[in-house]
Each structure stands twice: as structure tokens, then as C-alpha cells.
């Protein structure tokens, strides 16, 4: 049986590492990226069920990741996390059809719950 595939993009290694370890414990297949560019080309090759992305990154930001994902795979869910949470970014993200939006630090339990909701499992 195929496992759910989750992509995590964050320019800090610690976020990807921790996310990978904790999500793999729940049986997900996880790929992590420090830069959005290679992440997006990986998305061209293959589909992921959920993409968890940092909002603010060098070069390409989270909104662009969101747009690309939605163009390629309208049913892939995107969860945005950011260290610089303010109302404007949250509103912009929610308008862009983001599944969920979390300020960092985000409780791993909550992220996992959000992913389960995105996948329609409980």
C-alpha cells in the first residue's frame, strides 16, 4: 500500500529534521528541502499529498510555492508555517487557498492533526 507523501520546505535544517522525524513516526513518507527551487522541480516530477512550507524564505516565498502547487495539483493541500506571523500574511495565505496556517514555534501535535484533516483521515 502506498504511504501518504509529505513535502516539508523550510530554510532552517532543524525544522525539516524535526518534522521528518516526527512525521515518519506516524508512517508518512517525508521529503525535506532547504530551498524552494529544488522543491518545486521535485514537484514537477511527482505528486505529494501535503506540502508544509515556510512562508518567508530567500528567493521564492511560501505564496509562490502555494501557487505552483495548486496549479500542478489542485487537490494537494498546503500548510504554511511562519516565524513572522501577522494578520496580513495570514489573510493573504488564507485567500490563496491554504489549508492551514501556523505561527512558529508550532506544536507538532497540532501540525499532525492538521495534516490528518488535510488527508481526510482521523
Amino acid at each position, binding site marked *: 500500500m502506498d504511504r501518504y507523501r509529505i513535502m516539508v520546505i523550510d530554510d532552517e535544517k*532543524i*525544522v525539516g*529534521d*524535526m518534522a521528518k*522525524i516526527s512525521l515518519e*513516526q506516524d508512517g508518512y513518507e517525508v521529503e525535506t528541502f532547504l530551498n524552494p527551487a529544488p522543491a518545486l522541480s521535485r514537484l514537477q516530477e511527482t505528486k505529494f499529498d501535503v506540502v508544509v512550507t515556510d512562508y518567508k524564505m530567500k528567493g521564492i516565498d511560501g505564496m509562490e510555492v502555494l501557487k505552483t502547487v495548486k496549479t500542478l495539483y489542485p487537490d494537494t493541500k498546503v500548510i504554511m508555517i511562519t*516565524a513572522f506571523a501577522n494578520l496580513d500574511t495570514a489573510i493573504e495565505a488564507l485567500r490563496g487557498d491554504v489549508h492551514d496556517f501556523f505561527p512558529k*514555534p508550532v506544536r507538532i501535535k497540532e501540525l499532525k492533526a492538521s495534516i490528518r484533516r488535510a488527508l481526510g483521515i482521523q
Partner: protein
Amino acid sequence: MNKGFVGRLRTALGLSESGKEQVPPFELLFRRFRDVLESNNRAIEVITDMGEKLGGDYLFDIVYVGSAYSQLADTLTRSMHSFDLLTGSRYPELRGVYDRIDTQIREMMYGSPQGQDRMVVSLSDITRDMTHTVGGKFASLAAVKNSLSLRVPDAFVITTHAYDTFISSQNLIPLVEALDNGTEVNEAALDELRDLIAHATIPREIEEALHNALENMRTKCGERCFLAVRSSAEEEDSESSFAGQFETVLNVPLELRALEDAYRKVIASLFSHQSVNYQKQLGYRIGKLKMAVGCMVMVDALSSGVMYSTSPNGGSGTLLINATWGLGKAIVEGQTDGDFYKVKKGTAPELIEVKGGKKESMIVTLSEGGTALVRTPEAIAGKPCLAAGDIEELSRIGMTLEGHFGRPQDIEWAIDRAENIYIVQSRPLRIEQEGESEPASPVSLKDTGPPLMSHRGIAVQKGAGVGRVFILRHLDEIGNVPKGAVLVSRYDSSSFVRIMPYLAAIVTDVGTPTSHMASLCREFRIPTIVNTGEATELLSHGQEVTVTVGDEGETAVYKGVIEELGNRADMHSVTMEQAYEFRKKRYILRYIVPLNLVDPSIDQFLPERCKTLHDVLRFIHEKALMELVDKARYGNTMIREHAAVKLELPVPAGIIVIDIGGGLNSTAGTEHASFEQIASFPLRAVVKGMLHPGVWHADAVSLKVNDFLSSMMRVPDIAFQRNDYVGYNVAVASAEYTNLSLKFGYHFTMIDCYCSETARNNHLYFRFVGGATDITKRSRRVQLIAEILKGYGLSIEMKGDLIIGRIGNVRRDAMEALLEQLGRLLAYTRQLDAVMHDDFAVERYVRNFLKGDYEL
């Protein structure tokens, strides 16, 4: 005595010994104290938050760590500023201490080329905060030698600073940095780097330091002494063992050239294919790890080996010792079987199981330097290498080390010809916690036929693995082992680590559960059986098998796939602890959270003893309070200026309250307040307890003659209590805080409590000391109070007749109940020691108190 008191009174009245010093008006004093208190509370909140967010339950980034820490640093700086104003800068050293801790934390967060600038440090000079300079292995050894006074061979460490100097002097930095650029390990680049290191010139400043260290060593132990040169990487022996990953060069003579060669070898091993693979698997960024190198005097070992202070596979309460003749290298590298002893831990350790090994070969030192594997002389080969006394002493050492480090230890030891036991390594032993991995499920095995092998060998890591057997005839073939294979080998080897995460199970003919490979198997949780004798004969290459290792250490290999036992998805998942970046970030908490300054009544309560920011906070808090309380206790002026208010209570508790904001409902200028006017939540609760019917005994219990003499000697100020306001009990109070210093009868009690709606910010600190009457009765009362406090969930420390109790993270209503009980207890125990004539009394009074029977 008299002079001390008068002196304090003069100070309090603003008349210093010289008569010139100005005491600030009390209002100002309170404001400063309140500033200190507010900053401290804010700082504790930030510390608590960091502890929570960095605890592994949150995804966090450096932005969070940075901003939380700068908040903490800001509040602490503010607190120190107010503190200096309050005390007239009486503790100038505190700033230096804070700056040092702050620098350490910032270096850790943002990295820094500075830090310790010594090239070589001697083992006896290593302190707890030097882990990053001397590496984990030698930091632990230094603790064993310097704190526990156990026998550790003399040693010096070539620091991580020397490593930086070495790497940068050879222009190796770009090569090292280039290693961290992708997922694949570039083996050619590693080979080139190791070759450059092997031929590199040692920079002059390192060479000079080595020369001096060798001179020193010669003076101490003579020409005929040799060194073991061993790795001590930054994180080695901390969360990940790195067991057997780096080079060790044994029996190196005290000559500069030889030492330099050994140093280069050890440094180069940081970049071996095997160790780089291991680092990658644990999430390290290649090239980031720094290596210190320890040089330790070789023990002329008659026998040596490994001890696990707790058995890794079940049987907690027991420890394991593996021993062999000669050097212990033979055991950790799995080259000999060794003797195996299982000991039941306890005050009198008891040997419960012995398996004698054949010990056909042993490793010995050569007089010209170096070592050799030789055939063990027949006279001793089959003989046990430890006597009963050795086993007992080793066991005690094992328990001591486990106690000191607070977790099970993997210990390397050696016994010299004079029968002295030396500790040459102590590192955390990875043991699976209950429930950490599912036990092999009890499935029906009826249809599978008899096992190919069962009840053979020694279990190293429990679990089950399914795969095709790969019989490894030679280490060179290791690259050919396919993913998911069951590796079957004659010997065990730490080289297996390269492929370990991809293996279903490991089975060996020879080997011990205490080898490096065994440590790694536990780290990666690969089901492993060693010392089966003939697995390479019983199993055939390519055959599909299921390997099981049960909870009780029972082992079996079945033909074919038993689905129920098969590979579980989580088999190789590393835990959060093993993510390097996470560990590194979380490491800063070590410089923030732990509290080392506990007892202000002993001499060690000094600025220079502060090791963490929590200690700094604690120091400031305690000293700021003392400043205020001292002034209040001996200051008539306080009362005259209406800055303090006397509590009018139905019992003669004699408490004056210094209201620092919301502590009392009283109009300015009043001199008295009733119980109803106490607005401070924690103070009200304590006083309420004191007023509880029956707990306050009005009649003084008669003291016997020696009680009275002893109380005279212990409480010098007792003769001067005629003065109305001297010796008052003082409460400093705000709406959510109180510090209550009480002198009832002949003992001192202090309660410091913050209690708000947010449970995690709440704390209670309780200190009890002294008392009249002779020491036996005093200690009975201390025992009684400790028993009762423990019952309330406080953590207790005791020393003589001093008790310190602490509790935190308590809900407001629970704290209220607790404070009220404390109030009752204080009133009840005021004179209790005078009537506690025997040990049974303790139990009786505890029982009575808890029942609510307060008769004496």
C-alpha cells in the same frame, strides 16, 4: 555578638559604621525591589517557555530561539540594574559571571571562532562547562576523576581550538566545507582530505603546547610511560555514542613525532567513510563536528573490559561486566569472547551469573610502542580474570557512576598489576525505555516448523527482522550487502555501521554484548544476536529468514517469512534526540535552566558559583530580599515612616508586612492591618493556616537545661529582643507574591511563593533551619517536616537540620491549599522539638498532623 547586632542596626538606620552612608528612602527601596521581582518573574516565564518549546514537542527555528533569548537577556540586564541600585552595587562580580554565561550561550546559538583559546588542557583542569573544548568523552572522564575521585589515568586533551587551528593552517577549510553539499557522500573528496591531514604539518603553536604537555607527563610518570591517544569529538559520548567510529592509537611513546602522528591519525578518522556515514545517519552536517583528542597514560593492564551499569535487555537491578586478559580493545572490537558476569545491584552487590570465556587471544602492549594480538598463555586462557573482590569493587564503581551521571553508563575499565581499578571511559548507555518499541508479538509459530537456530548466543537488541541472509566472509564485501538483508558474520565489527540502518538484523558467531557494534545496534535498534558460535554454519547465504529477539533475551532464527514478526515501519526511525541540529539548539538550555544555587545559608551561595542564568536569578532574588528584610527587621524607621504595617492577628505571630503593591487593603499611613485586610493571595493563605483552630499552642513548652543552653548558643540575638521592633517576622507581599521570613521560637523559616492564574509560572520555595534543643530532637523535627512536605509533593533536600523544599507549576487553588497546610505546619511545629523525645514520636506526630489532630 553585641557588636554585630548594633552594626546591623546602625546600617538599617542609615548610620553605617562610619556614620556617613545614605540609605535611600524606603519607598524608593520598595520600588527597586519590585523592579527586581518583576524582571525576575518575567525571566522565569521566558525560561519556562523556552523549556517547553525546545522540549521536542514543537517545531521551532533559530528566529524563535534568538528572540526568546534576547528577551531573557533584556529582563536579566534590567534585573541586575535594579539589583545594583538596591544593594549599592555590593556584588560587582555578578556581572562578570553573567557575561561569561551569556557569551557561552550566544556562541552556541550563532557560532563563534573565539571561545577557549588553549591548545592543550590537563585532565585535572577540565571543568563541567568545557565540553565543547575537550569533547564529551574527556569532559565525562574529568568529572569521574575530579568530582568522584575515582582512579582515572593521567591525561591531557588537545582541544577543539587546536583542531580549528590545525584545519585552518592547512587551508583545509574549503575542502571540509565542500563536504556538506548534498545527500551523497563524496568518497573521493574524503580520501583526499584524509591524505592531506595525514601529511599535514602541525602548526607551531600546537607543537609547542604538545611539547610542554609531554614534558609535564615525563616529570609525572617517567620515560617508561606510554599514551593512549583517543578521539573526543564535541558530542561524542553524549546523546550518540559514536562507539568505535574514530581512531584510537594505543601505546604511543612520550615523543613529539609519535604523538603528532597519532594526532593526525585520529583527526583523519573524523573523515573516514564509516564515520561520515554514521554522522549523516544521525543528521549531522558533515564538516561541522569538531574533534578534540585525549592523550591518556596507558594502564599496564593485567585485565580489562567493559561494564554496563544496568543490563540493557531486561533485568533492571542488575549490571553486566565483560572482562578479558590484557587490553580491553579485544572486547570492544569483538575479537575475543571474554568472561561475562551478571551482578545484582545493591548495598552488597551479589554475583548471580558467570559465563567463563575461552579468551584464546589477548592484546598486549609492546615495549617499543604499539600493541599486538597474541595467543593467550595456556596457564591463564580459560581462567576467570576477575576475583570476587574485583567484581564487587567494579560493581560499586558502576553504581556510583550511574548515580553521578543520572543514567546507565557504558564503562571501560582496566586493572593494573598492583590491582588498582582504573576507569578509562564512561558514557551513556542506550537502553530502550518501556514501551519505546513494541515487544515482538506473541504469535503462533506452529506452521513455521522448528527454528533453524534457537536459544543460542546473547541478545543485544530485541525486536524482529525479516530478510535474506548475507554471510559476510570479509569486511571488504560490506559494500555488497543489499538493503534489508540479515547480516550474518563470524566476527562483529563497528564497520557495520555504514549499512546498519538498512539491515533487518545482525547475527554473529563471536562477539560480546558490550562491544562497539552492540552499542551501535542498540542506537539504531537493529535486532541483534552475538556469540551464537555457529550461525555462519547453520544459516545459508541467500536464505530467507526471520530473526527474533524477545523481551527476556530469548533468541531464535526461523526459516522463511513470519509476517506477524516482520519488519515494523518504525524499526529504523531515529528519535528526535538524535537530530543533531535539535540537540545543538536545545543544548543552550543547559546554561539557562538548571538550578545549582540551592542553599543560601552555606558559603557556596556566591556570585561565582552561578553556572546558569537561573542561578543568577536566584542569587539576585535572595540577596535583594535579604536587603529588604534586614532593613525591615532591624529598622524602627520602617514602622515610623509607615512603610511597614503590623498585622493584628488573634495569635502572637508578630508579623510586619512590607506591601510592595497590592499586598494589603489598607489606606496609606495606617500602622496596623487585620487578617481581612491581607490582599496578597499567598500570604493570606499561609496566615489562614496559622489561624486554624488548635494549631497554635499558646503555652511555651518547658525547655530542659541543655535545650536552653543550646538555644542560647545558636541564636545570638535572643537576648536583645526587648526592643519592640527587633526580631519581627517580615512578610514582603504583593498581590501575587509573598516572601515570609519567620523566626518562631528558635528556628527560622522562609516561604517564598509566587501564585498567579498561570500555573506554570507559580512556584513555592520553603526553607527551614535551626531550632533550640539538642541535635537529636532537632533532627526529629526536621524529619517530621520533611515527611509532611514530601506528602504534599514538594521535592526535598536535607542537610543537618536544614530542609529545602520546592515545587512549581501548581494551579492556584492547589497552591492555596498547600500554603494553608504550611501555615498550620509552621504554627504546629513551633515548639515541637521540645516534646519529641523518641523516634516514634516523629511518626506519631506526622500521623496526628495529617489527621488534623494538633495536640502536643
